[in-house]
C-alpha cells in the first residue's frame, strides 16, 4: 500500500485541483510509467539531435538511462505528477516536430503553477511599482542617515541609482543568473547546512543533478556551439523559452518552475557523453561511469531509504500516523489526531482512502485539559505534557498510557518534540 518516499501535502492539493482521487500506489505508478515512457522518448529525441554514426544502441541506452536516473526527473515524476506529464508532452512535441505546440504547453505550465502557488510566490510581484519604491526608499533613508540627515549625492547620480526601471532591470537579470545556482542544483542540503546561503529551506530540496552533470553540461554546451550542429539554435531557444515559468515565480520554487529546462539541458549532456564514448582513451569514460554509478547509488539509497533527510518532517509523520491507524483501528474507541503541524485530516484520508466517524482531527493540550475516556490521542509530545524544553522530564496525566511512539528526525513544531505519541486514556 505504501511506497516510500511519503506523499507531500502539495501533491494532495494538486489532486484536489484536478479533482482526482488517487491512491499513493497509483500516484507513484503513474509517475514511474511516465519516467519509463519519457526515457524512451528522450533517447529518441537525443538521437535525433546527435545522430551518432557508431555505437547507436549504446548511445540510445546511455541517454535513456541518463534521463531515467536523472535526480530532477525522478523528483518530478515521483512528487509532481503534472510536471511529469508536461515533460512527457514536451518530448512528444520535440520528437514529432510540432514546435508550435510548445506555446500551449508553456501556457499550461504557467497556469498550473499559478493555480498551485499563492501569488506571494510570484517573482513578478517584486517588480511592482510599490515594492520597488519601498526598496528605493530604504536605500535613500540609509544614504540620508549616514551623512547626518543630508542628501549629499548629486542629483543626476540620484536619478540613476534611485531609478525604479533600472532596479527592475537589475532584478530581472539577477533572477536569470540565479538559475545557474550550482549549490541549489547539486547540493542544496550541504550548502544550506553549512552556510544558510542558498536562500532555500533546508528540507524538501533534493539535488536536481549529480555533481558531475555540471561539467558535462558545460562541455556539452561548448560542443554544441563548436560543432555547428543544425539544431544548436533550436536547443538554445528551447532553453530560454523553458525558463519563462521560472522567471515568473520565486527562485525557491526552482525544481517545480524550471522543470521544462530539464529537457534542453539533458539534450546537451549526451553530446558530451557521446564525445567521451568516442575517445580512444577509455579512462575518462571509466571515470564518468564510476562517478555515475557511485552517485546514483548514493542518491537513490537516500531517496528511498532516508526520506527524512530531505523531506519536511511532517510528510513522514502523516504517513506513519496513517499506517498506525490502519493497523490499529478499533471501532469501539474514539481517536483524536492532532493537526498541530498540518492538515492531518487531508493526508490521513488520502493514505487510507476513507474517513472514519470516530476519528477527529484537532489540536489538544492534555497538560491543561482533562482527557476523554476510552480515547486514543495521537499527537506531538508537547501536546501530552505541555510544550517547552526537556519534555522527557515531565509527567503524563494520570490514567493515560503511551501505547506507541513514532520517532521523527526533527521537531515539526518548535518545542513540541520530535516524536508522535499515541496515548490511550481509559
Amino acid at each position, binding site marked *: 500500500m505504501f511506497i516510500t518516499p511519503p506523499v507531500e501535502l502539495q501533491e494532495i492539493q494538486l489532486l484536489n485541483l484536478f479533482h482526482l482521487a488517487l491512491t499513493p500506489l497509483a500516484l507513484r505508478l503513474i509517475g514511474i510509467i511516465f519516467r519509463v515512457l519519457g526515457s524512451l522518448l528522450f533517447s529518441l529525441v537525443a538521437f535525433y539531435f546527435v545522430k551518432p554514426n557508431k555505437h547507436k544502441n549504446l548511445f540510445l541506452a546511455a541517454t535513456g538511462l541518463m534521463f531515467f536516473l536523472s535526480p530532477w526527473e525522478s523528483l518530478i515524476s515521483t512528487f509532481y505528477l503534472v510536471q511529469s506529464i508536461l515533460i512527457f508532452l514536451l518530448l512528444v512535441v520535440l520528437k514529432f516536430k510540432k514546435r508550435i505546440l510548445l506555446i500551449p504547453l508553456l501556457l499550461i505550465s504557467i497556469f498550473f503553477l499559478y493555480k498551485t502557488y499563492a501569488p506571494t510566490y510570484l517573482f513578478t510581484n517584486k517588480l511592482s511599482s510599490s515594492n520597488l519604491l519601498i526598496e528605493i526608499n530604504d536605500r535613500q533613508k540609509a544614504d540620508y542617515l549616514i551623512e547626518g540627515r543630508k542628501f549629499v549625492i548629486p542629483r543626476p547620480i540620484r536619478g540613476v541609482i534611485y531609478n525604479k526601471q533600472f532596479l527592475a532591470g537589475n532584478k530581472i537579470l539577477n533572477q536569470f543568473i540565479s538559475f545557474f545556482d550550482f549549490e541549489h542544483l547539486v547540493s542544496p542540503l*550541504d550548502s544550506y547546512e553549512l552556510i544558510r546561503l542558498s536562500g532555500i529551506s533546508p528540507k524538501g530540496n533534493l539535488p536536481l543533478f549529480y555533481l558531475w552533470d555540471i561539467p558535462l553540461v558545460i562541455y556539452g554546451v561548448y560542443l554544441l556551439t563548436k560543432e555547428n550542429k543544425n539544431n544548436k539554435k533550436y536547443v538554445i531557444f528551447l532553453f530560454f523559452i523553458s525558463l519563462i515559468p521560472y522567471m515568473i515565480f520565486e527562485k525557491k520554487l526552482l525544481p517545480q518552475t524550471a522543470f521544462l529546462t530539464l529537457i534542453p539541458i539533458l539534450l546537451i549532456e549526451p553530446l558530451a557523453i557521446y564525445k567521451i564514448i568516442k575517445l580512444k582513451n577509455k579512462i575518462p569514460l571509466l571515470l564518468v561511469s564510476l562517478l555515475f554509478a557511485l552517485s546514483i547509488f548514493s542518491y537513490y539509497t537516500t531517496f528511498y531509504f532516508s526520506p527524512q533527510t530531505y523531506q519536511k518532517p511532517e510528510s513522514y509523520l502523516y504517513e506513519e500516523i496513517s499506517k498506525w491507524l490502519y493497523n490499529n483501528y478499533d471501532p469501539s474507541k474514539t481517536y483524536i489526531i492532532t493537526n498541530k503541524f498540518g492538515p492531518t485530516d487531508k493526508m490521513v484520508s488520502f493514505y487510507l482512502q476513507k474517513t472514519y466517524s470516530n476519528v477527529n482531527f484537532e489540536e489538544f493540550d492534555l497538560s491543561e485539559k482533562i482527557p476523554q475516556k476510552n480515547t486514543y490521542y495521537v499527537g506531538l509530545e508537547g501536546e501530552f505534557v505541555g510544550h517547552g524544553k526537556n519534555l522527557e522530564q515531565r509527567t503524563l496525566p494520570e490514567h493515560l498510557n503511551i501505547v506507541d511512539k513514532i520517532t521523527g528526525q526533527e521537531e515539526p513544531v518548535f518545542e513540541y518534540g520530535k516524536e508522535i505519541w499515541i496515548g490511550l486514556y481509559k
Partner: protein
Amino acid sequence: MDRIIQITNKYGLILILLLAFCLRVAWISKSPPSLNWDEASFGYNAYSILKTGKDEFGVKLPIFLRSFDDYKPALYSYLTIPFIYLLGLNEASVRLVSVFSGTFSVIFIYLLAKELFKNKYIGLLSALSIAIEPWAIHFSRAAFEANLALTLVLGGIYFLLKSKLKDNYVVLGTLLLSLSLYAYTASRILIIPILLVFLAIYGKNLFKIRKTLYLIIIFNLILVLPIIITNIVHPETLFRLSSTFLISSSTPARFLSYFSPINLFVRGSSEPTQHIPNFGMFFSFEFFFWVIGIYFLLKKYTKEKILIFLILVAPIPAAITWNWFYPARVLPLFSLFSILIGLGSYQTIIYLATKPKIIFAFSILAIAFLTLYNLANLVTTLRYLLPYEDRGNWQYGMREIVQEIAKNESNYNTIVFETRNAQPFIFVLFYSKYPPDMYQKQIENTAKLQIPRKSFDFGKYIFRDVYWPNDKKDQRTLLVAPDSSLPLDKVKSNSNLNLIKEVNDFEGNLLARIVGLR
C-alpha cells in the same frame, strides 16, 4: 575612432590605474565604517614593531603575529610600518597597504593577460575589469592580508609565465610566490599546485637554466626557512592551517561553488566582512562577458591552456576548508575570472565591430552606460550603504567609545569594559595608541604565558561583563557597557554617579553607555 585608439594605446593603462587607485583610496577612513579587529591587530602590531621592534606580545621581529591566537602571517604589518610612521596610527595608514596592493594587482593583471593572449587590448580590458569590479575594490579598501598575497601571487605567476621556466625571470617569479607565504596562510596551499601546473606545462624548459636552477631552489628554501623553523619550534603557529585539509563528501560541491554564477554575479558571500550590500563579487552584467570569455578560451585560445589549469587549481585552498563560499581564499581565482571577462568583452567588441556602424555605436554606448550605472551604484553603496547596513560586521562604534573613554580615563583608577562579541582590548590599544612597551610589560606575566589567551586585562583596563548591582559600589571606576547591563533608570538613581556618556550609531541606537563612579 583612430583618435580613441591612439589615446587608449598611449594613456589607457595610466587612466585605468588612476581610476583603480581613486576607487580604492576614496573615503578610506569612512568606508568600511570602522576597523574590524583583524585590521586593528595588524595596525597595532605594526605600531608596536615600529616603536619597540617587537609585536604586542613582545616577540622580536615576528614571522607570525599571535594576535587572537590565530597566528597571522606578519608581512602585512611590516609593510604598514612606513605608513604609520608617516601618517600616524589610524584607519588610513592600516588600509593603505591593501590600497596599493589592489592597484598593483591591476598592473599584474594587465601584464598577465597581455602575456597570455599577446594582445594589448585584452590586457587593458582585463585591467579595466579588475579596476572596477566589486570584489577587487572591496578587498583593496580594508586591511585584508589576502589582498596583499594576491598581488604577490599574480606577480609570481606573471614572471613565471614570462620566463616559461627558461630564463632568469624565474627568480623573480619564485621570489614573489615565496614572499606570498609571509602574507597569507592560504598561499601555502595555493603555490604548490601553481608550481605543479608550470612544471607540467613548461617543465621541459628547465634544462635551459639548469646552471642556475640549484641556486634558485636554494635561494627560495632560504627564503621560506624562517617559516618552517617557526612552525617546528612553535607548532601553535600552524593554527590557521589546522582548519584546512577537511576533505569530505561535500568538498567537490564546495569546489564547484566557486564557479557558481549566482555566487559570483548575484549573491556574493555571507561572510560578514567580505560582501558589499546588493552586490555579488562581480557586476551581474559581467556574467555574459564571463561566459563569452570561457567560450573563446576553450574554442580559440587553445594554446593558453595554462589559464584553464590555473583556474582549476585556484579554488583548492578554499575547497579544502570548512567554509562554503569564502572569497578571501580565492582572490587569485577571481582575478583570473577578470581576465576571462576582459577576453569576453574584447571578443564582444570585435564581433560588434563587424556590424553596421550604428549598431556598433549603440551597443558600445549601451555597454558603457551599463558599466557607469553599475559603477555609480557601487561607489555610492561603498560610500553610504555599506557603512550603514554593515556597521555591525565592522565593529562600528569602537572608535567612538574609545575616544570617549580616553577623554575621561585619567580621572579613574579602573575601567571596566564589557566584552561580549568584539575583542575590545585591541581597539583600546589601537585608538588610544597605547604605548606598546608599557603594554608588553603589563601582560608579561598574564596573557603572554597563557596559550590560548584567557585574560585580556592590562593597565587599568578590565574586560568582563558589567553587573550593575555589584559594580555600582565601586569607586573611581569607569564602566562601559550596553543598555542591558547599565540601564539608564537604575544608573541615574545611584548617588555615587560622576558621569554618564552615551555613544550612539547613525540611527540614534545606543552602542554603549559610559558611567563614571566617584
